């Protein structure tokens, strides 16, 4: 079979699919060679722990399942722990991907990076805004 059973089942019933209200970190990765697009929504609390994760994907089964599993992997982790997640961790859960589909799991890894970049950017913006306000006062 093209995809293994785990991927086929998870693809039909992804548990973390959809957008998120109040997400404070949104990462997005586009793969140019086939225009796959994955968006990862994270909610990170004051203690830098990822409370919740959701995803949206325009892509094949492998991309959808990789993103779904990534959400599971990052939940409950601190930012540092989340950054250490690699595509191998995703493959360890979902099993082997068909030929040339490994990039789908790499994409998942990249979305975490992108989301956390976004988180820090937002923090920086907030800090600047706060600074500006204090200066005015």
């Amino acid at each position: 079979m093209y995809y293994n059973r785990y991927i086929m089942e998870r693809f039909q019933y992804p548990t973390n699919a959809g957008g998120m209200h109040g997400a404070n970190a949104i990462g997005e990765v586009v793969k140019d060679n086939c225009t796959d697009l994955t968006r990862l929504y994270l909610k990170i609390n004051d203690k830098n722990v990822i409370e919740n994760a959701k995803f949206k994907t325009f892509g094949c089964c492998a991309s959808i399942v990789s993103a779904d599993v990534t959400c599971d992997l990052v939940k409950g982790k601190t930012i540092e722990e989340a950054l250490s997640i690699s595509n191998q961790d995703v493959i360890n859960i979902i099993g082997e991907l068909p030929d040339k589909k490994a990039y789908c799991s790499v994409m998942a890894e990249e979305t975490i990076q992108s989301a956390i970049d976004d988180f820090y950017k937002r923090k920086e913006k907030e800090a600047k805004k706060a600074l500006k306000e204090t200066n005015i006062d």
Partner: protein
Amino acid sequence: MDRKIYLDNASTTYVSQEVLNEMMPCFNVLYGNAGSIHSFGRTAMSIVDKARDRIREGINAQKSTEIYFTSGGTEADNLAILGVAHAYAEKGKHIITSQIEHHAVLNACKQLEKEGYEVTYLPVDKSGLVSLPDLLHSIRKDTILISIMSVNNEVGTIQNIKSIAKIAHDYGIFFHTDAVQAIGQVKIDVQDMEIDLLSLSAHKIHGPKGVGALYVKSGIKFEPITYGGNQERNMRSGTENVPGIAGLGKAVELATKNYIITNRKLKIIRDYFLEKLAEKVEYYQINGHPYQKSNAIVNISFYGIEGEALLMLLDLSGICVSTGSACTSKSLLPSHVLEAMHLPKDIAQGSIRFSFGTNISKADVDYVVEELAKAVAKLRAISPIQAGRI
């Protein structure tokens, strides 16, 4: 889910009972080698000759000896392009083809480029048609061959074959057409359409896999690409695939004889499908020519969805289709046909090809559209691209 609906007839078709009946005795009763001169061999040869006659009649060739059996459409295309190019190398080394040809033609041309030939790949418009002015502009003094497919296998667009052939002959150029998808879909008359070389294949028209034929108008030279026991008048060596050839002959006979009825049925199925689809699904586009196209093929891009995911969901409901999405191709590149038609990448990614057979009922179409609507809704719910905004 036990229900299976096969909507991938442009990939391959089931072997019809009539064709099977024609083939079966060739396996274990009339199993002679067509090259032997004893009675078994002569019987086998008469089966091969009968198939040759049927194909001659089907495409209205002048003589049966203008038909050469091959291992399929790919070999027929290769034999036509490489064969003519090699035979007329002294006259010129320029070949014209289109960007939307099957890879059997494109890669044969790539091979010729390696050998020092020059190839012009004509662009197509949004509907997949080769423009005749473009063709005229690309003709050179050293052009020896024009190869344009009759019906495109991905979007079903029918080319203006007769006009292209006329242009070719005005300039003393040979004209080849890949009619693998066209037999049984459109009327093919090689004399009326002035076709010099034509490739066809059995498995697209309810015949067996692994057998095809090349028509070469008598008087045109071409060089073989296989060497061996000098079968097919030295042009295609290798023991004749007698069961396959018998099946091909019958399949071509049935397809060409019944093409009007088949087309009428297919048109009814296609129109019903599109009508139902418009009721149940939003935000999609139909790729290909609006009317100059095969009734069997409908290529649709669903916005905001990637084709492979949709294909897999449909497959889980027992519906078999194919997609032009890059995710399913070995090269991870989107379909070269949709690319040549200037479809934006994300729209090409969401393309699904439905290719109908006459065995599809209205109830089947209802089921397909229902499942399709469900699958599209499911994938759009998790897509970051909003379909309505495309």
